[in-house]
């Protein structure tokens, strides 16, 4: 049985900009919105929008600014870029979804986690919540 797995595609220029943007937030958690288009099983990242991190009480949490997201979703509704998912950094921690990430996760969106080690972006991985199991499944990232 073959399993069709969707994947995330990202161009090297956008990816480099994204990593640089995330590294700037170190040692705090940086976060933002991934924008682009959907082609069959592929989600193609065409841009990203850094969002203010509204979780101010703790350094190891993030909350994407709701207003930034509202605007992005309104633009999507108006025929603009699709909201494909979100990214956030794990400063000095592996790019694996934490229990907090899992508890607060929404289905369908991709959650891209970037490990930033001592201020340097090191490893990027993409995850999607499996609604049936309540666990994150990894999605391959294709760099174009």
């Amino acid at each position, binding site marked *: 049985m073959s399993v069709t797995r969707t994947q995330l595609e990202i161009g090297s220029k956008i990816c480099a900009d994204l990593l640089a943007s995330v590294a700037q937030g170190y040692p705090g*958690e940086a*976060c933002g919105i991934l924008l682009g288009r959907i082609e069959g099983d592929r989600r193609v990242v065409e841009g990203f929008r850094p969002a203010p991190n509204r*979780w101010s009480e*703790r350094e*190891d*949490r*993030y*909350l*994407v600014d*709701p*207003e930034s*997201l*509202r605007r992005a*979703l*309104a633009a999507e*509704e108006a025929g603009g870029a699709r*909201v494909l998912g*979100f990214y*956030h950094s*794990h*400063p*000095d*921690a*592996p*790019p*694996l*979804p*934490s*229990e*907090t*990430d899992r508890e*607060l*996760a*929404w*289905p*369908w*969106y991709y*959650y891209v986690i970037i*490990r930033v080690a001592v201020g340097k972006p090191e490893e990027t991985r993409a995850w999607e919540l499996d609604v049936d199991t309540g666990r994150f499944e*990894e999605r391959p990232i294709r760099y174009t």
Partner: protein
Amino acid sequence: MARVSIRIPTPLRPFVDGRSSVDVEAETARGALARLTESNERLRAQLFDDDGELRNFVNVYVGTNNLRDLPDDPALEEGTELSIIPSIAGGRTSEVIEMTGGGAEAERAGLTTDELRRYSRHLLIPEVGLEGQERLKGARVLLVGAGGLGSPLALYLTAAGVGKIGIVDHDVVDFTNLQRQILHDTSSVGTSKLESARARLHAINPNVDVETFETRLDSGNALEILQGWDVVADGSDNFPTRYLVNDAAVLLGVPTVYGAIFRFEGQVSVFGAEDGPCYRCLFREPPPAELAPSCADAGVFGVLPGIVGTIQATETIKLILGQGRPLIGRILLIDALQMQFRELSIHSDPSCPVCGESPTITELIDYEEFCGVNVDRGGSADGVPEMEVTQLQRWLDEGRDFQLIDVREPYEWQICNLEPQGARLTPLGVFPTVVGELDPAIPMVVYCRSGARSANAVEKLREAGFDAINLKGGILAWAEEVDESMPTY
């Protein structure tokens, strides 16, 4: 009543037949949400908690204003747009993850951020995951021997994050070990194997606690040393230790991951597990000592302990995780030359003297005696006359009439021999056919590598009426005391 439309985010569209917005008639914002979810239980569960409050991870916007920032329940005008906006949040875990529950064999222990990173490739495998990795960290594994099998065992178990590793060994690193014992390197020749192992393992994974027992495992200390470990991995190279480890582990109820090698062939199994057979169920008694050569006597293909020891490490980790099908009741036979893996079923023997229904071995015995091995392997068999290499040198200088017999194998002869001194190669295997060519009237000096095999040959030759004398210490002693230029092995 005002007719308003509610924008639905992609993740919630499956609950509204895939639509991106739903129109409802309502007077207030909360009224609109109530209408949206009144006949849609699943959607209501997504948006509201059990008390009917909007969930924390959901925002509702009325136009461009967050409902949370507006007066309690704002009235709506015709054509107002409401948007359900997911709240996107999360965060890394910076604390140590708490210990949660105990494992079957090993306790689980919490992981630090550094360990989460180090073991991330394990954490991704469902069969390991966080729970399994915590189990590994809580596990205690004792390795018997830091040699060929102990090397891959120690390296992989350390890399995998087994919390505590004990190693029993009393040897120093020998130059001839380096061909296969990858725990040690050239710089550690002459130093204690345990010191060398400790340094190497610490360099691989400083999180692992290494406890060393610099002693020869024997009946007097085995129960004390083997007590309290979750798994014993046997990397010993001789029968007395193998039986000792088996018996002690069975008496203590600890499973043993067994491995053994001979030249190109290896064996792996798991003994002493609950309801599984032990080593004695399979091999009630050891082979005669002369048929049980050590690596030093028989040679070993250097990669082979790597294969066998790595399989032992695999089985050890599976036992700790409680995953997969361990080699319990099965023995894996490996032939590296043909590259064939075969498997035999083995069964618990009800009459087994140690794990059977009426065991006769209830405490540890003298295993050297049981295996018929002389403690001093370089020495002679009982009552066999022997001579020092210096005496042989004198006999040669004096031009005495005697026969010099080498009972080693041809490949050993090629490395070094006493042919210039008149030695004749007569491997043990061909002895019966050539013994008739030897002259019983002339004394004969018999040698092998270290003096053990030749002592047995001398015993048999003397029984057959020959005036045979064993060369004490074998050709190794000759190389050390008489001819330092001679290559040794």
